[in-house]
């Protein structure tokens, strides 16, 4: 071992300004060969913009970048690639209708007009075998699961000669098992001298994956630590600048009568393929039912058949005992169902309308907001002001257009509206996805508060931590079916993970506990 390793990458005093915001304020970064650096921070802390600077998507306003000690200018993703920097974005940059191999060579310049696909596929197979990145190069992207697509992205970067791999929240879409595999891949890569930076706001991953951790807070670098010398509590404190409660205060649930009942519900996607295959589910007043599962196993459709946004092809949906199968979204809203949609920008708000208008998008039909067909602007403003204070929405004014708020405040706006209009059932799909610790806490507490007000809450989440802390019961979905149900107090993460991967509860229990324990959970 050499006594002093030279960093493969150095960023010095990087400053990136956006109108009204300093995304990065004199940030320094060092990355050593064969090591994994975790970039930790809340939403809006500047992690992604710093990495976009490195990947050639943004130009820094100030600061210098050195690769292997040499000063470089990264003006485009192509430059970044030439320097051996490859980024796996949160939203994969893959063409669905093309094969894995085609995606991997897409955009490469040194490819012949008629590419030698045989040779390319061979090379891909070599890489994929070497790193245990199991993917069929001839498969089409649309045939692949999200986890596999991520592998394609990583493969693509390695194929293109990436020495420094940037991963933007790579585990958000993975099962615990898949995360584990990703960890192995990273270790294999680093053992060969490649290095990686990964962006996250999950403490456990920092501990599991990285050698070093850099914490950003409000665009500034707060700390650099060796991962071995820190712990999740300390990191969380540094990240938000205060102590965070990891377990929220919650009394035991006191479930009452069922308020939302699904009986053998079936649904198809646009292509006519079944996405819900006979789902039975009950949510009682005063309880939170969590739905676990890897994204894309029917959870979104589940929330949408309940809210009337997706047609039901078989079975029944009952709200408060009333038949609500395939009723219009409006009649379901009137039956008391509120909805925090999975895609908050596309479905939850109208970005070009004001915070005030967005807050009344459920209440505008009623007096006194609307009086004889006309909307009362003063009443809207009053209502909005009250909501902004109650839910601590941070906005310049209630007249500000929602699209200029941060993700957390957009979600708080939705939350305020949906909770104010909730009449028995709250369906929440990934309510804290992409939110920082502070906003996540607010969202989770509000779910519990709804439960304590005797509403039934259905919480869909891909974050097991969230389900375990917030939900009272957890059902696990896989390919449109419910694999089993566990009580969250005595739930076992490994067991849930197995069910998320498609193992039915009984088999999962046998596999995990051995057959003699199968009966007592």
């Amino acid at each position, binding site marked *: 071992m050499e006594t002093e390793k030279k960093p493969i990458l150095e960023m010095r005093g990087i400053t990136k*300004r*956006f*109108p*009204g915001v300093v995304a990065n304020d004199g940030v320094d970064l060092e990355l050593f060969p064969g090591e994994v650096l975790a970039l930790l921070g809340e939403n809006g802390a500047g992690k992604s913009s710093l990495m976009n600077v490195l990947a050639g998507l943004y*130009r820094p*306003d100030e600061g210098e970048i050195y690769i292997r000690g040499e000063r470089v200018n990264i003006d485009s993703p192509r430059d970044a690639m030439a320097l051996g920097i490859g980024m796996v974005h949160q939203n994969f940059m893959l063409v669905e209708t093309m094969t894995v191999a085609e995606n991997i060579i897409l955009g490469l310049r040194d490819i012949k007009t008629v590419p030698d696909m045989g040779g390319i596929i061979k090379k891909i197979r070599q890489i994929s075998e070497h790193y245990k990145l199991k993917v069929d190069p001839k498969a089409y992207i649309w045939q692949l699961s999200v986890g596999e697509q991520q592998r394609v992205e990583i493969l693509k970067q390695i194929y293109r000669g990436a020495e420094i791999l940037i991963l933007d929240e790579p585990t958000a879409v993975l099962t615990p098992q898949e995360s584990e595999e990703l960890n192995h891949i990273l270790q294999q890569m680093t053992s060969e001298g490649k290095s990686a930076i990964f962006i996250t706001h999950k403490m456990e991953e920092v501990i599991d994956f990285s050698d070093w951790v850099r914490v950003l807070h409000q665009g500034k670098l707060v700390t650099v630590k060796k991962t071995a010398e820190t712990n999740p509590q300390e990191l969380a404190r540094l990240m938000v600048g205060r102590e965070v409660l990891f377990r929220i205060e919650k009394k035991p649930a006191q479930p009452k009568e069922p308020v939302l009942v699904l009986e053998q519900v079936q649904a198809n996607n646009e292509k006519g393929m079944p996405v819900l295959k006979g789902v039975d589910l009950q949510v009682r007043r005063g309880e939170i039912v969590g739905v676990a599962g890897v994204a894309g196993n029917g959870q979104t459709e589940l929330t949408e058949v309940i*809210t009337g*946004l997706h047609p039901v092809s078989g079975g029944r949906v009952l709200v408060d005992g009333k038949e609500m199968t395939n009723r*219009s*979204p*409006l009649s*379901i*809203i*009137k039956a008391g169902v509120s*909805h925090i*949609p999975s895609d908050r920008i*596309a*479905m*939850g*708000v*109208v*970005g*070009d*309308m004001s915070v005030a*208008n967005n807050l009344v*998008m*459920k209440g*505008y*039909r009623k007096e006194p907001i*609307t009086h004889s*067909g*006309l*909307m009362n*602007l003063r009443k809207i403003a009053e209502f909005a002001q009250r909501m902004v204070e109650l839910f601590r929405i941070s906005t310049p004014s209630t007249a*500000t*257009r929602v699209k*200029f708020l941060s993700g957390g405040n957009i979600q708080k706006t939705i939350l305020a509206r949906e909770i104010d209009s909730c009449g028995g059932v709250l369906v929440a799909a990934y309510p804290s996805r992409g939110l920082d610790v502070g906003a996540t806490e607010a969202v989770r507490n509000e779910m519990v508060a709804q439960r304590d007000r005797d509403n039934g809450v259905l919480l869909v989440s891909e974050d097991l931590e969230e389900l375990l802390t917030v939900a009272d019961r957890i059902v696990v979905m896989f390919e449109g079916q419910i694999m089993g149900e566990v009580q969250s107090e005595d739930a076992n993460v490994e067991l849930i993970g197995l069910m998320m991967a498609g193992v039915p509860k009984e088999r999962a229990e046998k596999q995990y506990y051995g057959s003699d324990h199968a009966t007592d959970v």
Partner: protein
Amino acid sequence: MQLMFEKRKSLSRKAIVLVPVVSFLVSLLLSGILLAIFGANPMRTFAAMFNGAFGSWSNFTETLVKAIPLMLTGLGVTIAFRLRFWNIGAEGQLVLGGVAATWVALFWSPFIPDFLLLPTVILFGSLVGGLWAGLPAYLKTKLGVDETLVTLMLNYVAILFAEGLYYGAWRDPQGYGFPGTREFPQAAWLPRFSGRAHVGLFVAIAIGLILWLVLNRSKWGFELNMIGKNQRAAQCMGVNVKRNIVLALLLSGALAGMAGAFEVTAISHRLQQGLAMGYGYTAIIVAWLSQLNPIAGLFVAVLMAALLVGGDQVQMMMGLPAAMGLVMQGMILFPMLAGSLFTEYRIKRIDKQEHAE
């Protein structure tokens, strides 16, 4: 290349007002250059145009005559555009409204009491104009057919259908070969108040004011706003998106249809060549230049009408082509479209320094 534009944190109110005004000035400049190329003195031409449109009461009434259909079609297009429904078929809706009005005025008059004839003529014209816009709306919401093409193509259907009627079946036998129907009975004439300016002006202004209230203050306007800005979210909030699109387009087309009914009942008193003179297309400029604000739309319609009348004037006075007015109309749109960028974006200067680096 580096992106030169940055998204503004909030809409610039200054830009909302400034962009149309500056666009108009830029179009004057561009037209001035064009005039100079034609060998005309730009300032004198503009003065003549202004004079032609506003120089005397009778000139002004002519401007109003052209402003009325522009107001109505402009308002109709505004409703559709607020929904991001690209109705470029106001021309056809206007023409078919005129045809429907003519049908009632000519063939129903024996069966309808005089005092009811005119209202029936106007209402039927509006109704048919509405249905002509409702058709593409229905196709779009039901089958996902692109509305831009359908509304455009339906213009030709309507215009040629009208031609077929006044050249053929409905042609006035005593018309000395002039393509047009016979004159309407007097009970179907829309009263004029000065020159050819008719009471349709007050109807159009009233509709503009009411429409402002409906679009900006009513529950329905709120729903239309949501649909226009985020259809999926509107659906999530329980808004019946498809029904509202069809309803809004019925209203959009009805206003164009009403404009057509006004043209035949107040101006020509018959269906004849010249009904399709491009109001429905100019309406698109009216809608954009008014930034989809109905009240602003009323004023912009007068401005666009002034360009048309002024264009006619320079043809008579200075021997320049009347199309000059149309050229100027078109030239407003370019800086307008380019300029609307500035309401949402601003140019970042730092980038220039970076490039110099």
